[in-house]
């Protein structure tokens, strides 16, 4: 975005501008958007790519496909997906309760949802470990039953569920609030069952928001380090997450190897988010066509 193209819409005569766009300021805001995105997102990411270029192709492949690294991808993406799915279901439930029912203490419950956003993730990890470890409040009852959560991959999933919870609730809640009650009433008067109302009327309306929340929770979980590291146990091949592999590589001053793994993570995440966005667009068209 050059200065000339930036100022062109401003300099143009009002008549022409009105002919082109109803809303003024497109050039300026787009220019600013690109500039801002470059500074905050694209430049750091390109630095990542450049660091990786110091490796040959073979070195790159070895760095990102060694058994320990492969095991960590499986754990990171698997646990993140699982945690995001759990949040999809229970986040919807929470949003539903918060929107549709009136009860005392609702404001507090509503505020509690945001806590995982605000809490330093290391604190979350340490408290979850303290509760779930063999001598913790919950862990002491589970251990005699042979259930171990802390220091296992299950602990990783729990930490990721915790940090991802607000995303689904906060994206679905406003959409659910805006949903027109009349549609549901109309469906009832036309003889629809409750299940039919939910699947045919409510769900199509909130699906885009649900998918957005899911994608955000998923993306957040993939990059999470602070909370997971305390609860995971960090055993190679079993409970090592990919961010830990990256830290481990930095610890041995293997900058290029660390960025190589980071690039792989980035590409996989980007593709997954594209797929989810595509799914959302498809759903919207599908919903639009059926309406």
């Amino acid at each position, binding site marked *: 975005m050059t200065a000339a193209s930036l100022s062109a819409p401003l300099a143009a005569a009002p008549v022409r501008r009105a002919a082109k766009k109803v809303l003024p300021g497109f050039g300026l805001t787009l220019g600013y958007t690109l500039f801002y995105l470059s500074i905050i997102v694209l430049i750091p990411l390109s630095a990542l790519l450049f660091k990786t270029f110091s490796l040959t192709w073979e070195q790159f492949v070895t760095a990102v496909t060694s058994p*320990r690294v492969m095991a960590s991808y499986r754990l990171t993406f698997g646990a993140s997906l699982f945690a995001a799915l759990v949040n999809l279901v229970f986040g919807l439930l929470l949003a539903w309760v918060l929107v549709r029912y009136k009860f005392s203490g609702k404001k507090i419950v509503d505020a509690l949802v945001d806590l995982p956003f605000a809490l330093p993730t290391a604190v979350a990890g340490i408290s979850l470990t303290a509760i779930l470890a063999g001598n*913790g409040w919950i862990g002491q009852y589970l251990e005699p039953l042979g259930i171990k959560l802390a*220091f296992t991959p299950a602990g990783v999933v729990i930490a990721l569920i915790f940090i991802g919870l607000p995303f689904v609730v906060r994206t679905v809640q406003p959409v659910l609030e805006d949903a027109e009650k009349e549609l549901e009433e109309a469906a009832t008067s036309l003889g629809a069952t409750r299940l039919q109302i939910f699947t045919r009327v409510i769900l199509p309306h909130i699906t885009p928001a649900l998918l957005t929340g899911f994608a955000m929770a998923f993306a957040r979980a993939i990059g999470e380090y602070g909370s997971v590291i305390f609860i995971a146990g960090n055993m190679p091949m079993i409970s090592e997450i990919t961010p*830990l592999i990256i830290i481990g590589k930095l610890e041995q001053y293997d900058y290029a190897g660390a960025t190589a793994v980071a690039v792989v993570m980035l590409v996989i995440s980007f593709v997954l988010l594209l797929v989810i966005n595509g799914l959302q667009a498809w759903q919207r068209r599908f919903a639009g066509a059926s309406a």
Partner: protein
Amino acid sequence: MTTKLKLALASIALATGGLASAQTLLNGSYDVAREFYKDYNAAFIAHYKKTTGKDIKVDQSHAGSSAVARSVADGLDADVVTMNTTTDIGFLADKGLVAKDWTQRFPNDASPTTSTMVFLVRNGNPKGIKDWADLVKPGVQVIVVNPKTGGNGRMAYLAAWGSVRKSGGSDAQAAEFVGKLYKNVPILAKGGRDATSIFLQRNTGDVLITFESEVLSVNREFGEGKVDAVYPSSSIVAENPVAVVERTVVKKGTGELAKAYLAYLYSDVGQEIAARHAIRPRSPAILKKYSNVFKPIQQFTVKDYFGSLGEAQKVHFNDGGQFDKLYTVK
């Protein structure tokens, strides 16, 4: 903009530090040395005032040893680095920030203090752990730091390996022993403090392998009598190397001060402060004075069996090395 910023900074410096000409030294150091250097800085500032009449200020920057090395490499203006792993200073030397012959610049390979790896067991030693061989018994859970993420973990691994060599074993026997040992490790902690908290707060594991100096802080934080320290028949000398960061001192003109700061670590005062923090002094007299803290133990150095920490890193800890094989080769 920049002049305004400088003015603001200068006024802050004036308001807080009194004299604007007072030299400031930044010590980049590892996490658990925070308390030691707090005491040492006070002693050094007084000593410097007495001998030269100049007021100085010493700031500390702490993180994991190699995290500090990385920040210094990326531009943190530390005048001196005081680490717990020689490879961290070696990395800075490779980058040209520290003199290539930094180990020759101060006595004892530029390590004024050392530590060693010992065992912490639960009070009364219910599993009867006395030596390295007891750690590989079935049913014994050992907590150690991941050698990939912490110097503490690398030292524990090398101590275990070296103990076999010290008693006359071959490298193959050492590899077998270490393999068995890590089979008994249920959790690899991220760093030294994380390991301590897993062992004491999470109540997980029967024995914790850690630095001798951790024993003191465990007793201080969790109360005496929760754990017993067990000294194995032999263990490793873990050096705490120091160096002047040439890039910074050239820029700031603090070369002499930085050298005096590190040299004073070797003085009786410096050595005694270290001893009070359970860090082994080099001075035999002070080591003897604190013999109730530093139990006699047969020690071997990294050089004895591994050449150098840098070589050990390549063979054992880098990706695809001996440590990875413990988990990936069945």
